[in-house]
Protein backbone atom coordinates (compact mmCIF):
# COMPACT_ATOMS: atom_id res chain seq x y z
CA UNK A 1 0.00 0.00 0.00
CA UNK A 2 1.22 3.50 -0.73
CA UNK A 3 2.73 5.29 2.22
CA UNK A 4 0.21 8.13 2.26
CA UNK A 5 -2.70 5.74 2.86
CA UNK A 6 -1.00 3.99 5.77
CA UNK A 7 -1.24 4.73 9.46
CA UNK A 8 1.96 6.09 10.89
CA UNK A 9 3.24 6.86 14.35
CA UNK A 10 1.40 9.79 15.98
CA UNK A 11 -0.66 10.14 12.81
CA UNK A 12 -3.53 11.68 14.76
CA UNK A 13 -1.43 14.87 14.61
CA UNK A 14 1.48 14.31 12.23
CA UNK A 15 0.12 13.39 8.81
CA UNK A 16 3.44 12.72 7.12
CA UNK A 17 7.21 13.23 7.24
CA UNK A 18 9.65 13.95 4.44
CA UNK A 19 13.45 14.02 4.25
CA UNK A 20 15.09 15.71 1.26
CA UNK A 21 18.76 15.86 0.26
CA UNK A 22 19.87 18.31 -2.45
CA UNK A 23 22.89 17.21 -4.45
CA UNK A 24 24.77 18.43 -7.51
CA UNK A 25 27.26 16.72 -9.77
CA UNK A 26 30.88 17.80 -9.78
CA UNK A 27 32.10 19.69 -12.81
CA UNK A 28 28.66 20.49 -14.21
CA UNK A 29 27.01 23.89 -13.58
CA UNK A 30 23.77 23.91 -11.59
CA UNK A 31 20.60 23.31 -13.59
CA UNK A 32 19.85 26.98 -14.37
CA UNK A 33 23.30 27.41 -15.99
CA UNK A 34 23.70 23.96 -17.54
CA UNK A 35 23.76 23.54 -21.28
CA UNK A 36 21.39 21.12 -23.01
CA UNK A 37 24.14 18.55 -23.51
CA UNK A 38 24.99 18.65 -19.83
CA UNK A 39 21.37 18.30 -18.72
CA UNK A 40 20.83 15.36 -21.02
CA UNK A 41 24.09 13.78 -19.81
CA UNK A 42 22.83 14.01 -16.23
CA UNK A 43 19.51 12.53 -17.32
CA UNK A 44 21.27 9.63 -19.12
CA UNK A 45 23.69 8.99 -16.27
CA UNK A 46 20.96 8.78 -13.64
CA UNK A 47 18.85 6.59 -15.90
CA UNK A 48 21.77 4.19 -16.28
CA UNK A 49 22.38 3.78 -12.55
CA UNK A 50 18.77 3.25 -11.46
CA UNK A 51 19.01 -0.59 -11.59
CA UNK A 52 22.05 -0.44 -9.28
CA UNK A 53 20.11 1.48 -6.65
CA UNK A 54 17.51 -1.20 -5.98
CA UNK A 55 14.32 -0.42 -3.97
CA UNK A 56 12.28 -1.23 -7.09
CA UNK A 57 13.00 2.24 -8.41
CA UNK A 58 11.92 3.23 -11.91
CA UNK A 59 13.10 6.08 -14.08
CA UNK A 60 10.37 8.23 -15.62
CA UNK A 61 10.98 11.28 -17.77
CA UNK A 62 8.60 14.07 -16.80
CA UNK A 63 7.86 14.64 -20.48
CA UNK A 64 6.23 11.18 -20.49
CA UNK A 65 3.70 12.24 -17.83
CA UNK A 66 0.68 14.35 -18.86
CA UNK A 67 -0.12 17.61 -17.08
CA UNK A 68 -2.95 16.17 -15.00
CA UNK A 69 -0.84 13.31 -13.67
CA UNK A 70 2.01 15.71 -12.90
CA UNK A 71 -0.51 17.68 -10.86
CA UNK A 72 -1.43 14.47 -9.01
CA UNK A 73 2.26 14.05 -8.09
CA UNK A 74 2.21 17.61 -6.72
CA UNK A 75 -0.93 16.86 -4.71
CA UNK A 76 0.81 13.84 -3.21
CA UNK A 77 3.72 16.19 -2.37
CA UNK A 78 6.07 13.96 -4.39
CA UNK A 79 7.29 16.76 -6.65
CA UNK A 80 7.35 20.55 -6.30
CA UNK A 81 4.81 22.68 -8.21
CA UNK A 82 7.72 24.47 -9.96
CA UNK A 83 9.14 21.13 -11.08
CA UNK A 84 5.76 20.11 -12.55
CA UNK A 85 5.71 23.31 -14.62
CA UNK A 86 9.36 23.10 -15.68
CA UNK A 87 9.98 23.55 -19.40
CA UNK A 88 13.32 21.74 -19.23
CA UNK A 89 12.93 18.55 -21.32
CA UNK A 90 15.52 16.58 -19.30
CA UNK A 91 13.60 16.51 -16.01
CA UNK A 92 12.79 13.11 -14.56
CA UNK A 93 11.72 11.32 -11.42
CA UNK A 94 13.10 8.11 -9.97
CA UNK A 95 10.26 6.53 -8.06
CA UNK A 96 9.13 3.16 -6.66
CA UNK A 97 5.65 1.59 -6.57
CA UNK A 98 5.08 2.47 -2.89
CA UNK A 99 6.03 6.03 -3.83
CA UNK A 100 7.95 6.45 -0.56
CA UNK A 101 11.09 7.27 -2.56
CA UNK A 102 10.95 9.96 -5.23
CA UNK A 103 14.17 11.46 -6.57
CA UNK A 104 13.77 14.61 -8.66
CA UNK A 105 16.27 14.89 -11.49
CA UNK A 106 17.21 18.34 -12.86
CA UNK A 107 14.91 20.33 -10.61
CA UNK A 108 16.67 23.36 -9.07
CA UNK A 109 19.57 21.04 -8.22
CA UNK A 110 20.71 18.07 -10.30
CA UNK A 111 19.49 15.54 -7.76
CA UNK A 112 16.92 15.88 -4.99
CA UNK A 113 16.61 12.67 -3.00
CA UNK A 114 13.26 12.57 -1.22
CA UNK A 115 11.85 9.91 1.10
CA UNK A 116 8.42 9.95 2.71
CA UNK A 117 6.39 8.22 5.37
CA UNK A 118 3.07 8.66 7.06
CA UNK A 119 3.15 9.85 10.67
CA UNK A 120 6.24 11.01 12.50
CA UNK A 121 9.20 8.88 11.43
CA UNK A 122 12.10 11.24 10.78
CA UNK A 123 14.92 9.01 12.07
CA UNK A 124 14.12 6.04 9.85
CA UNK A 125 13.63 8.38 6.92
CA UNK A 126 16.97 10.05 7.58
CA UNK A 127 18.72 6.68 7.58
CA UNK A 128 17.01 5.65 4.37
CA UNK A 129 17.93 8.95 2.69
CA UNK A 130 21.58 8.57 3.73
CA UNK A 131 21.59 4.96 2.52
CA UNK A 132 20.39 6.09 -0.92
CA UNK A 133 22.83 9.00 -0.84
CA UNK A 134 25.73 6.63 -0.15
CA UNK A 135 24.76 4.40 -3.05
CA UNK A 136 24.59 7.45 -5.31
CA UNK A 137 27.88 8.94 -4.14
CA UNK A 138 29.69 5.74 -5.13
CA UNK A 139 28.39 6.17 -8.66
CA UNK A 140 28.28 9.93 -9.06
CA UNK A 141 30.90 12.48 -7.99
CA UNK A 142 29.12 15.11 -5.93
CA UNK A 143 29.92 18.78 -5.91
CA UNK A 144 31.26 19.51 -2.44
CA UNK A 145 33.62 21.87 -0.69
CA UNK A 146 35.32 21.24 2.62
CA UNK A 147 34.15 24.57 3.92
CA UNK A 148 30.59 24.75 2.62
CA UNK A 149 29.79 21.03 2.40
CA UNK A 150 27.35 19.96 -0.34
CA UNK A 151 27.01 22.83 -2.77
CA UNK A 152 23.49 23.73 -3.87
CA UNK A 153 22.04 26.26 -6.29
CA UNK A 154 20.26 28.09 -3.49
CA UNK A 155 22.42 29.10 -0.52
CA UNK A 156 19.53 28.30 1.82
CA UNK A 157 20.21 24.57 1.24
CA UNK A 158 24.02 24.54 1.27
CA UNK A 159 26.01 22.44 3.75
CA UNK A 160 24.10 19.28 4.57
CA UNK A 161 21.67 19.96 1.72
CA UNK A 162 19.13 18.54 4.14
CA UNK A 163 15.55 19.69 4.61
CA UNK A 164 13.28 17.68 6.86
CA UNK A 165 9.62 18.56 7.00
CA UNK A 166 6.51 17.21 8.64
CA UNK A 167 2.86 17.99 7.94
CA UNK A 168 0.90 18.52 11.14
CA UNK A 169 -2.88 18.63 11.50
CA UNK A 170 -3.61 21.18 14.24
CA UNK A 171 -7.38 21.78 14.34
CA UNK A 172 -7.73 21.93 18.14
CA UNK A 173 -4.95 24.49 18.50
CA UNK A 174 -6.77 26.63 15.92
CA UNK A 175 -10.22 26.12 17.46
CA UNK A 176 -8.94 27.07 20.92
CA UNK A 177 -7.09 30.08 19.52
CA UNK A 178 -3.66 28.86 20.58
CA UNK A 179 -2.13 28.37 17.17
CA UNK A 180 -0.37 31.77 17.14
CA UNK A 181 1.56 30.89 20.28
CA UNK A 182 2.74 27.65 18.74
CA UNK A 183 3.72 29.32 15.48
CA UNK A 184 5.76 31.94 17.35
CA UNK A 185 7.46 29.37 19.56
CA UNK A 186 8.45 27.19 16.62
CA UNK A 187 9.77 30.14 14.64
CA UNK A 188 11.84 31.21 17.62
CA UNK A 189 13.48 27.78 17.68
CA UNK A 190 14.94 28.26 14.22
CA UNK A 191 12.35 26.16 12.40
CA UNK A 192 9.80 27.46 9.99
CA UNK A 193 6.12 26.63 10.26
CA UNK A 194 3.54 27.70 7.74
CA UNK A 195 0.07 26.84 6.58
CA UNK A 196 0.16 24.35 3.76
CA UNK A 197 -2.90 25.69 1.98
CA UNK A 198 -4.37 29.15 1.88
CA UNK A 199 -2.69 32.46 2.33
CA UNK A 200 -2.48 35.02 5.09
CA UNK A 201 -4.31 34.25 8.30
CA UNK A 202 -6.65 31.62 6.87
CA UNK A 203 -5.11 28.18 6.83
CA UNK A 204 -7.37 25.76 5.02
CA UNK A 205 -7.66 22.34 6.54
CA UNK A 206 -5.53 23.35 9.56
CA UNK A 207 -2.52 21.61 8.01
CA UNK A 208 0.88 23.13 8.78
CA UNK A 209 4.32 22.32 7.44
CA UNK A 210 7.23 22.42 9.86
CA UNK A 211 10.78 22.34 8.48
CA UNK A 212 14.36 23.21 9.38
CA UNK A 213 15.84 26.51 8.21
CA UNK A 214 19.47 25.85 9.01
CA UNK A 215 21.35 23.47 6.72
CA UNK A 216 24.93 24.69 7.24
CA UNK A 217 27.04 24.33 10.37
CA UNK A 218 24.74 21.73 11.81
CA UNK A 219 24.92 17.94 11.53
CA UNK A 220 22.29 15.68 10.00
CA UNK A 221 21.77 14.18 13.42
CA UNK A 222 21.12 17.54 15.06
CA UNK A 223 18.61 18.57 12.41
CA UNK A 224 16.79 15.24 12.80
CA UNK A 225 16.76 15.51 16.57
CA UNK A 226 15.58 19.13 16.59
CA UNK A 227 12.76 18.43 14.20
CA UNK A 228 11.66 15.37 16.12
CA UNK A 229 11.69 17.18 19.47
CA UNK A 230 9.75 20.14 18.12
CA UNK A 231 7.23 17.83 16.46
CA UNK A 232 6.74 16.00 19.75
CA UNK A 233 6.16 19.30 21.55
CA UNK A 234 3.57 20.27 18.98
CA UNK A 235 1.87 16.87 19.25
CA UNK A 236 1.71 17.33 23.02
CA UNK A 237 0.14 20.79 22.71
CA UNK A 238 -2.38 19.69 20.09
CA UNK A 239 -3.44 16.71 22.20
CA UNK A 240 -3.84 18.96 25.25
CA UNK A 241 -6.04 21.28 23.22
CA UNK A 242 -8.09 18.30 22.03
CA UNK A 243 -8.62 17.16 25.60
CA UNK A 244 -9.78 20.65 26.47
CA UNK A 245 -12.27 20.61 23.60
CA UNK A 246 -13.50 17.15 24.56
CA UNK A 247 -14.51 18.49 27.97
CA UNK A 248 -17.24 20.47 26.27
CA UNK A 249 -18.46 17.21 24.75
CA UNK A 250 -21.76 18.21 23.12
CA UNK A 251 -20.30 21.31 21.51
CA UNK A 252 -17.54 19.36 19.80
CA UNK A 253 -19.73 16.39 18.91
CA UNK A 254 -22.27 18.74 17.39
CA UNK A 255 -19.61 20.47 15.28
CA UNK A 256 -17.88 17.39 13.92
CA UNK A 257 -21.15 15.54 13.19
CA UNK A 258 -22.61 18.59 11.45
CA UNK A 259 -19.51 18.74 9.29
CA UNK A 260 -19.69 15.00 8.66
CA UNK A 261 -23.33 15.46 7.69
CA UNK A 262 -22.50 18.08 5.08
CA UNK A 263 -19.50 16.12 3.79
CA UNK A 264 -21.43 12.90 3.33
CA UNK A 265 -24.65 14.40 1.95
CA UNK A 266 -23.59 17.33 -0.19
CA UNK A 267 -24.20 17.03 -3.93
CA UNK A 268 -21.49 19.58 -4.71
CA UNK A 269 -18.24 20.23 -2.83
CA UNK A 270 -15.51 22.71 -3.63
CA UNK A 271 -11.91 21.68 -2.91
CA UNK A 272 -11.62 24.26 -0.10
CA UNK A 273 -14.90 23.24 1.51
CA UNK A 274 -13.94 19.56 1.37
CA UNK A 275 -10.62 20.36 3.07
CA UNK A 276 -12.33 22.35 5.81
CA UNK A 277 -14.90 19.62 6.46
CA UNK A 278 -12.30 16.85 6.35
CA UNK A 279 -10.19 18.67 8.92
CA UNK A 280 -13.11 18.67 11.33
CA UNK A 281 -14.13 15.09 10.46
CA UNK A 282 -10.54 13.87 10.93
CA UNK A 283 -10.52 15.50 14.38
CA UNK A 284 -13.81 13.76 15.21
CA UNK A 285 -12.47 10.41 14.03
CA UNK A 286 -9.14 10.79 15.86
CA UNK A 287 -11.07 11.52 19.08
CA UNK A 288 -13.33 8.52 18.56
CA UNK A 289 -16.49 10.64 18.20
CA UNK A 290 -17.17 9.72 14.58
CA UNK A 291 -17.30 5.94 14.32
CA UNK A 292 -18.30 5.71 10.66
CA UNK A 293 -14.78 6.41 9.35
CA UNK A 294 -11.22 5.25 9.98
CA UNK A 295 -7.71 6.66 9.45
CA UNK A 296 -7.04 5.16 6.04
CA UNK A 297 -10.44 6.30 4.72
CA UNK A 298 -9.67 9.82 5.94
CA UNK A 299 -6.24 9.79 4.24
CA UNK A 300 -7.90 8.59 1.08
CA UNK A 301 -10.59 11.28 1.30
CA UNK A 302 -7.98 14.02 1.85
CA UNK A 303 -5.98 12.96 -1.20
CA UNK A 304 -8.69 11.91 -3.63
CA UNK A 305 -10.77 15.06 -3.22
CA UNK A 306 -7.94 17.20 -4.57
CA UNK A 307 -8.52 18.75 -7.97
CA UNK A 308 -6.19 16.73 -10.22
CA UNK A 309 -6.96 13.49 -8.37
CA UNK A 310 -10.69 14.00 -9.01
CA UNK A 311 -10.08 14.56 -12.72
CA UNK A 312 -7.74 11.58 -13.10
CA UNK A 313 -10.27 9.36 -11.34
CA UNK A 314 -12.98 10.45 -13.79
CA UNK A 315 -10.46 10.15 -16.60
CA UNK A 316 -10.78 13.58 -18.20
CA UNK A 317 -10.31 17.30 -17.67
CA UNK A 318 -13.30 18.84 -15.90
CA UNK A 319 -14.50 22.37 -15.31
CA UNK A 320 -14.45 23.55 -11.69
CA UNK A 321 -18.24 23.12 -11.53
CA UNK A 322 -18.04 19.53 -12.81
CA UNK A 323 -15.20 18.82 -10.40
CA UNK A 324 -17.34 19.96 -7.45
CA UNK A 325 -20.07 17.50 -8.41
CA UNK A 326 -17.64 14.63 -8.98
CA UNK A 327 -15.89 15.41 -5.70
CA UNK A 328 -19.15 14.95 -3.79
CA UNK A 329 -19.69 11.59 -5.57
CA UNK A 330 -16.17 10.42 -4.76
CA UNK A 331 -16.66 11.30 -1.09
CA UNK A 332 -19.85 9.23 -0.95
CA UNK A 333 -18.15 6.26 -2.62
CA UNK A 334 -15.19 6.27 -0.24
CA UNK A 335 -17.45 6.55 2.82
CA UNK A 336 -19.50 3.56 1.58
CA UNK A 337 -16.44 1.32 0.90
CA UNK A 338 -15.67 -1.50 3.36
Amino acid at each position, binding site marked *: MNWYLQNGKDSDVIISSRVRLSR*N*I*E*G*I*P*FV*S*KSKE*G*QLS*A*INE*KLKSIVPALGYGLKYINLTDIDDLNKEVLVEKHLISPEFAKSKNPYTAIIINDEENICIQVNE*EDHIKIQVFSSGLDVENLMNLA*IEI*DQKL*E*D*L*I*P*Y*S*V*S*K*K*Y*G*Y*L*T*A*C*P*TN*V*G*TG*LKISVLAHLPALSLTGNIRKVLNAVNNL*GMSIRGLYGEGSKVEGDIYQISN*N*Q*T*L*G*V*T*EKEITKNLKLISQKIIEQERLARKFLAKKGEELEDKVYRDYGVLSNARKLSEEEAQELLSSVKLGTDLGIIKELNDSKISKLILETKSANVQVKVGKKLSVYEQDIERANIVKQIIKED
Partner: protein
Amino acid sequence: MLCQNCGKNEANIRYTQIINGIKKEIALCSDCAKKLGMDNLELPFNLNSFLGDFFNDYAETEFMPMLQTNELKCKNCGMTYDEFINTGVFGCSQCYDVFSNPIDSLLKNLHGTSKHIGRLPNGKAEKITVEADSGDKEKNKESDKKKMLERDLEKAIKEERYEDAAKIRDELKEMNK
Protein backbone atom coordinates in the same frame (compact mmCIF):
# COMPACT_ATOMS: atom_id res chain seq x y z
CA MET B 1 25.03 42.61 -19.29
CA LEU B 2 22.10 40.21 -19.38
CA CYS B 3 18.55 41.22 -18.58
CA GLN B 4 17.94 40.85 -14.86
CA ASN B 5 14.39 39.66 -15.35
CA CYS B 6 14.70 36.86 -17.90
CA GLY B 7 18.46 36.36 -17.67
CA LYS B 8 18.54 35.47 -21.37
CA ASN B 9 18.62 38.55 -23.57
CA GLU B 10 21.12 41.35 -23.55
CA ALA B 11 19.83 44.23 -21.42
CA ASN B 12 19.28 47.48 -23.23
CA ILE B 13 17.10 49.43 -20.81
CA ARG B 14 18.42 50.53 -17.48
CA TYR B 15 15.84 51.56 -14.91
CA THR B 16 16.91 53.59 -11.90
CA GLN B 17 14.72 54.02 -8.88
CA ILE B 18 15.56 56.45 -6.08
CA ILE B 19 13.46 56.35 -2.94
CA ASN B 20 14.57 58.36 0.11
CA GLY B 21 18.01 58.65 -1.35
CA ILE B 22 18.43 54.89 -1.81
CA LYS B 23 19.33 54.12 -5.36
CA LYS B 24 18.43 50.87 -7.06
CA GLU B 25 19.20 50.04 -10.62
CA ILE B 26 17.95 47.29 -12.83
CA ALA B 27 18.81 46.35 -16.37
CA LEU B 28 16.18 44.86 -18.65
CA CYS B 29 15.88 43.70 -22.22
CA SER B 30 13.23 45.45 -24.30
CA ASP B 31 10.94 42.37 -24.28
CA CYS B 32 10.85 42.17 -20.50
CA ALA B 33 10.51 45.92 -20.16
CA LYS B 34 7.42 45.80 -22.37
CA LYS B 35 6.04 42.76 -20.57
CA LEU B 36 6.41 44.45 -17.21
CA GLY B 37 4.92 47.67 -18.48
CA MET B 38 8.30 49.28 -17.99
CA ASP B 39 8.71 50.76 -21.44
CA ASN B 40 6.98 53.93 -20.30
CA LEU B 41 9.02 54.03 -17.06
CA GLU B 42 6.34 55.12 -14.65
CA LEU B 43 5.35 52.46 -12.16
CA PRO B 44 7.34 51.73 -9.04
CA PHE B 45 8.12 48.03 -8.99
CA ASN B 46 10.20 45.32 -7.46
CA LEU B 47 11.54 42.61 -9.70
CA ASN B 48 14.17 41.16 -7.47
CA SER B 49 13.57 37.78 -5.96
CA PHE B 50 12.83 37.97 -2.26
CA LEU B 51 15.98 36.12 -1.33
CA GLY B 52 18.15 38.11 -3.70
CA ASP B 53 16.68 41.31 -2.37
CA PHE B 54 17.51 40.23 1.15
CA PHE B 55 21.08 39.50 0.11
CA ASN B 56 21.43 42.85 -1.56
CA ASP B 57 20.05 44.84 1.36
CA TYR B 58 22.19 42.82 3.70
CA ALA B 59 25.30 43.36 1.61
CA GLU B 60 24.71 47.10 1.46
CA THR B 61 24.71 47.44 5.24
CA GLU B 62 28.08 45.71 5.42
CA PHE B 63 31.31 47.61 4.98
CA MET B 64 31.75 46.31 1.53
CA PRO B 65 32.86 48.15 -1.56
CA MET B 66 29.76 47.47 -3.68
CA LEU B 67 31.46 48.43 -6.91
CA GLN B 68 33.96 45.68 -6.53
CA THR B 69 31.26 43.17 -5.66
CA ASN B 70 29.21 44.13 -8.67
CA GLU B 71 32.12 43.44 -10.94
CA LEU B 72 32.59 39.90 -9.62
CA LYS B 73 31.86 37.29 -12.23
CA CYS B 74 32.17 33.52 -12.17
CA LYS B 75 34.43 32.48 -15.03
CA ASN B 76 33.02 28.96 -15.07
CA CYS B 77 29.32 29.68 -15.63
CA GLY B 78 29.22 33.41 -16.30
CA MET B 79 27.14 34.21 -13.21
CA THR B 80 27.52 37.82 -12.06
CA TYR B 81 26.82 39.15 -8.60
CA ASP B 82 23.92 41.16 -10.03
CA GLU B 83 22.45 38.03 -11.53
CA PHE B 84 22.76 36.21 -8.23
CA ILE B 85 20.98 39.07 -6.46
CA ASN B 86 18.25 38.90 -9.05
CA THR B 87 17.63 35.15 -8.96
CA GLY B 88 18.80 34.20 -5.48
CA VAL B 89 20.47 31.06 -6.84
CA PHE B 90 24.04 30.30 -7.87
CA GLY B 91 25.04 29.02 -11.31
CA CYS B 92 27.67 26.46 -10.42
CA SER B 93 29.81 25.16 -7.59
CA GLN B 94 32.62 27.59 -8.38
CA CYS B 95 30.30 30.53 -7.66
CA TYR B 96 30.72 29.69 -3.99
CA ASP B 97 34.43 30.46 -4.29
CA VAL B 98 34.09 33.46 -6.58
CA PHE B 99 31.51 35.11 -4.33
CA SER B 100 32.95 33.72 -1.12
CA ASN B 101 33.73 37.20 0.17
CA PRO B 102 30.25 38.67 0.02
CA ILE B 103 28.40 35.43 0.80
CA ASP B 104 30.29 34.39 3.90
CA SER B 105 28.52 36.95 6.03
CA LEU B 106 25.24 36.22 4.30
CA LEU B 107 25.56 32.52 5.08
CA LYS B 108 26.26 33.41 8.70
CA ASN B 109 23.08 35.43 8.71
CA LEU B 110 21.08 32.59 7.14
CA HIS B 111 22.52 29.64 9.03
CA GLY B 112 24.34 31.21 12.00
CA THR B 113 27.64 29.94 10.62
CA SER B 114 29.50 29.55 7.35
CA LYS B 115 31.30 26.29 8.06
CA HIS B 116 29.95 22.84 7.20
CA ILE B 117 30.21 20.19 9.93
CA GLY B 118 27.94 17.44 8.55
CA ARG B 119 28.63 14.41 6.35
CA LEU B 120 30.79 14.43 3.24
CA PRO B 121 30.96 11.82 0.49
CA ASN B 122 33.90 9.42 0.57
CA GLY B 123 34.86 10.24 -3.00
CA LYS B 124 34.85 6.82 -4.64
CA ALA B 125 32.73 7.95 -7.56
CA GLU B 126 34.01 8.40 -11.10
CA LYS B 127 33.66 11.77 -12.76
CA ILE B 128 30.75 12.21 -15.15
CA THR B 129 31.75 13.75 -18.43
CA VAL B 130 29.71 15.27 -21.19
CA GLU B 131 30.80 13.80 -24.53
CA ALA B 132 32.45 16.96 -25.80
CA ASP B 133 35.24 17.13 -23.25
CA SER B 134 35.72 13.42 -22.57
CA GLY B 135 38.89 13.38 -24.69
CA ASP B 136 41.26 14.87 -22.17
CA LYS B 137 39.49 13.41 -19.18
CA GLU B 138 42.57 12.35 -17.28
CA LYS B 139 44.32 15.64 -17.80
CA ASN B 140 41.27 17.56 -16.63
CA LYS B 141 41.05 15.45 -13.56
CA GLU B 142 44.59 16.18 -12.58
CA SER B 143 44.41 19.90 -13.23
CA ASP B 144 41.09 20.00 -11.35
CA LYS B 145 42.74 18.39 -8.38
CA LYS B 146 45.64 20.75 -8.57
CA LYS B 147 43.33 23.73 -8.68
CA MET B 148 41.44 22.43 -5.70
CA LEU B 149 44.64 21.90 -3.73
CA GLU B 150 45.85 25.35 -4.60
CA ARG B 151 42.59 26.78 -3.38
CA ASP B 152 42.80 24.74 -0.19
CA LEU B 153 46.34 25.96 0.36
CA GLU B 154 45.30 29.57 0.01
CA LYS B 155 42.46 29.04 2.44
CA ALA B 156 44.64 27.23 4.94
CA ILE B 157 47.13 30.08 4.96
CA LYS B 158 44.40 32.64 5.28
CA GLU B 159 42.93 30.76 8.22
CA GLU B 160 46.38 30.32 9.74
CA ARG B 161 46.22 26.51 9.65
CA TYR B 162 49.89 26.23 8.82
CA GLU B 163 50.17 22.53 9.55
CA ASP B 164 47.47 21.78 6.95
CA ALA B 165 49.09 24.23 4.56
CA ALA B 166 52.40 22.42 4.76
CA LYS B 167 50.73 19.10 3.97
CA ILE B 168 48.93 20.53 0.95
CA ARG B 169 52.12 22.18 -0.28
CA ASP B 170 53.95 18.85 -0.13
CA GLU B 171 51.15 17.17 -2.05
CA LEU B 172 51.32 19.86 -4.74
CA LYS B 173 55.08 19.43 -4.99
CA GLU B 174 54.57 15.73 -5.49
CA MET B 175 52.15 16.41 -8.35
CA ASN B 176 54.48 18.85 -10.08
CA LYS B 177 57.30 16.32 -10.24
